[in-house]
């Protein structure tokens, strides 16, 4: 259905091809996953299928890409619109009209389908994607998961034989991601649609893939094959594969179910060490000290505190009666659906949002009444889009500005950048950094003022496993130094890895607050893969299992 013949793409002004030697074929009706670390050209490969590369982006494409027998060399994207449906990373920049029903019809109108056909397909698609109740809603009022489904629906209505998706689940909470993936699987199974998608969160998608195309490193030729085989050699892999590699299972399990079947042995071996590790259960081994307030006879002054906090915005109650104490050295993961109020809570801790009732305190200060200059020394927030924090056109200028803003010695920020991002030169433009590097730069800028309370909003969106691992190391070191950290995240694996405490929000209220192990284990959608595999034992991460095995081995 999609055939790449020795394709290489060189963008204008780039010395080297972004991708080269791409040569594979996606058969009809398969779901193929494009995997690899950031910056290997996954989006370029996806763009080549719809013809946007090189017709829209510029650059030179060598070789040949054919989709359903049409050569993208001679067919512009609009002439492929009836066979290829493309959904980019940000569904919001995909919408042309403003209500759900019109958006679903837009593609068909462009293709000139007859009105009765359009009407029928819109109804079918509304049912297929579970959007019937939302048909008249303005798109701007939908949640992230709903928008993603509308975006997929809008390219489905012309009945394309190929669907190309770039990170369809990255911005979604676990439940919404499952929803979207269930729809994709239904399309592949029932309608024979061919799907090619790129995704960083392999733990969510690998089980649905018929084949995996792996781009191991920039410029390297792709490896195509059965998911289990490819995962055995891949530099990026989900926790279930990591556990499988650790335990030496072959073929590697890809689903929690497969892994559970094999895990009998491992569970037995771990039984003994779990007993010995029981006192540290649910908390990280390298955690410096017990930080939960009630363990202390005299509680330390909290880094941040919200008491009976309510926030009402545009007549919608975003937060309702939230009480939360953040102690120094503690890492808290805020989890919950898209729109549950996680970002609002973080924003009220930095004073971007005024509480409608209740109090917020950061150290000794009330955030929304404190001048920004003083507040940066008390609390720092890395927003969802780290780029928002960066204005300058070189890393050096950014660092100088950060030193000045924070009133610290010149060079403080630069030292932090060198520590977090070895190998980034002074004259690099922040826009040329990868997602992970940009996050690290924003983190360095925020840390320049040494705030005792650090807040991160969705820090792992768009990060590959290596960048995530680096972030985890950095954040752990900060927590060990006594920084309190609050993460709002959908990434259950990250929460399991980092957080001492998990706070679950729903509709602006706290519905669970406790040690990571207790909260996460009891919830099917928020449990990390390792927990699911090794239940009823309480393991959270592969690192814990590895440490336990080494201990018993010794």
């Amino acid at each position, binding site marked *: 259905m999609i055939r790449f013949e020795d394709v290489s793409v060189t963008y204008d002004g780039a010395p080297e091809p972004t991708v080269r030697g791409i040569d594979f074929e996606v058969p009809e009706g398969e779901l193929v996953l494009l995997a690899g670390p950031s910056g290997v050209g996954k989006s370029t490969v996806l763009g080549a299928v*719809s*013809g946007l590369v090189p017709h*829209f982006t510029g650059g030179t494409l060598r070789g040949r890409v054919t989709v359903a027998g*049409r050569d993208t060399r001679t067919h512009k*994207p*609009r*002439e*492929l*619109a009836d066979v290829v449906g*493309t959904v*980019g990373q*940000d569904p919001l*920049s*995909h919408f*042309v009209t*403003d*209500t759900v*029903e019109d958006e679903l*019809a837009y*593609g*068909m*109108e*462009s*293709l*000139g*389908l*007859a*009105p*009765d*056909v*359009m*009407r*029928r397909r819109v109804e*079918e698609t509304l049912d*297929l994607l579970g959007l019937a109740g939302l*048909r*008249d809603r*303005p798109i701007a*009022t939908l949640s992230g998961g709903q928008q993603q489904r509308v975006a997929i629906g809008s*390219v489905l209505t*012309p*009945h394309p034989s190929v669907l190309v998706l770039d990170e369809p689940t990255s911005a979604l909470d676990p439940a919404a991601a499952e929803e979207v993936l269930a729809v994709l699987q239904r399309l592949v199974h029932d*309608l024979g649609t061919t799907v090619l998608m790129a995704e960083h969160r392999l733990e969510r998608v690998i089980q649905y893939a018929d084949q995996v195309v792996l781009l191991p490193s920039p410029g390297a030729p792709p490896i195509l094959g059965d998911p289990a085989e490819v995962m055995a050699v891949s530099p990026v892999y989900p926790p279930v594969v990591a556990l499988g590699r650790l335990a030496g299972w072959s073929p590697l399990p890809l689903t929690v179910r497969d892994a559970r079947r094999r895990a009998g042995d491992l569970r037995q071996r771990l039984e003994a060490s779990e007993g010995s590790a029981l006192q540290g259960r649910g908390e990280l081994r390298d955690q410096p000290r017990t930080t939960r307030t009630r363990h202390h006879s005299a509680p330390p002054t909290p880094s941040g505190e919200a008491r009976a906090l309510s926030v009402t915005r545009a007549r919608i109650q975003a937060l309702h009666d939230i009480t939360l104490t953040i102690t120094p050295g503690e890492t808290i993961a805020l989890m919950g659906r898209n729109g549950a109020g996680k970002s609002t809570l973080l*924003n009220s801790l*930095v*004073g*971007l949002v005024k509480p409608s009732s209740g109090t917020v305190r950061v150290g000794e200060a009330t955030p929304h009444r404190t*001048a*920004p*200059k003083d*507040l*940066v020394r008390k609390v*720092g927030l890395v927003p969802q*889009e780290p780029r*928002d*924090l960066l*204005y300058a056109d070189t890393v050096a200028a950014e660092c100088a*500005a950060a030193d000045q*803003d*924070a009133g610290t010695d010149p060079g403080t920020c630069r030292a932090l950048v060198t520590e977090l991002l070895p190998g980034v030169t002074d004259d690099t433009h922040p826009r040329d950094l990868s997602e992970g590097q940009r996050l690290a730069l924003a983190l360095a800028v925020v840390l320049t003022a040494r705030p005792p309370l650090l807040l991160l909003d969705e820090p792992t969106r768009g990060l590959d496993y290596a960048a995530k691992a680096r972030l985890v190391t950095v954040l752990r070191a900060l927590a060990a130094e006594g920084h309190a950290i609050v993460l709002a995240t959908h990434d259950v694996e990250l929460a399991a890895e980092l957080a001492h405490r998990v706070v679950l929000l729903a509709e602006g209220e706290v519905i669970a607050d406790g040690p990571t192990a207790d909260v996460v284990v009891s919830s099917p959608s928020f449990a990390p893969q390792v927990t699911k595999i090794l239940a009823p034992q309480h393991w959270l991460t592969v690192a814990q299992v590895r440490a336990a095995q080494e201990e018993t081995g010794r």
Partner: protein
Amino acid sequence: MGSRPARPPGGRADGAAARAGAGGAPQRRAAHPTRPERRRRAQLHPGAWWLWALALGTAATRTTNPLLLALLITVSAYVVATRRPDTPWSRSYGAFVKLALAVILIRLLFAIVLGSPIPGTQTLLTLPELPLPAWAQGIRLGGEVTAEALTFALYDGLRLATLLICVGAANALANPSRLLKSLPGALYEMGVAVVVALTFAPNLIADVQRLRAARRLRGRPDKGLRGLLHVGLPVLEGALERSVSLAAAMDARGYGRTAQVPPAVRRTTAALTLGGLLGVCAGTYGLLTAEGAAYGFPLLLAGLAAALAGLRLGGRRSPRTRYRPDRWDVRAWLVVASGVAVAALLALAAARDPAALHPGVVPLVAPTLPLWPAAAVLLGLLPAFVAPDPKEPS
């Protein structure tokens, strides 16, 4: 096969129906694809709303009677309150009302500061007058403020405010982008481009707010003009990036596909459109000059007809079809008729009884409500009863 022309509905539909087998339920519904009863949540043609609101606005320009103007505002506000859908753009009504208030205030302020040509006797207060050089004769700064001048300014401002509120009502009742659906095919793509350009502004405001918040996170003051200037460049960058990705998405979804058209048709289109526009120009010129009145009007009509025919023929190049176009039904006629009736009756009243519609300011008299023009304005309430209620589930 460069661009594939749309297949006849039957061929494609068969495949669609076969594929739909998985859905089950949809097929049952598909048996009656275009039943008029199952209209999308009962909506009136957006053109009808716009015509009704513009007619009310026209009526407002016929009078300066504050009671009649207030009645017009009340009528349009009542219709908006009962018939506006619950959508983001319908909330713009509040913004229009605020704008109208601002217009009245500015008009009053000008009358106070710059004086007014209205000769008045009842001086309310005297501002210190600024002596101006000889070349600025006719302009006055400060001086006497008379009750007559203020009343005149208030009436005048109110008339403008009513006009604005009427436009706001149209905006709240009908989504302007839905109006596009009624454009001829040849102009549709241009219309989409305009709408996309219009969404640029709200996105830009959202970006500015986000980036100013980010400035606060960096420890810089987030208020004041300097803060605004500093975020300017990143905001423009972001907006540009978003436009580019939207353009890519639109391209990939078939925006701008063209159908094969025989060269003869293409040439006829060009000739008709160009000739028509020339005719319109010449006709308008003829109408405006004294000696050309005889040939001006027919030429204008012929030019218009040729240009319209050109547009219609040009539509063939675009293979677009319309999804559930808005219907112009009896209710749309009634809504338009009620608006036009108000405008016509007020125009008639203004001709027959100018004193009642333009209450005197010199000497100052209390305005009275003329009975039958007021009754005419109440005709504008008709849409509140005949237009479908958007809040009612269909």
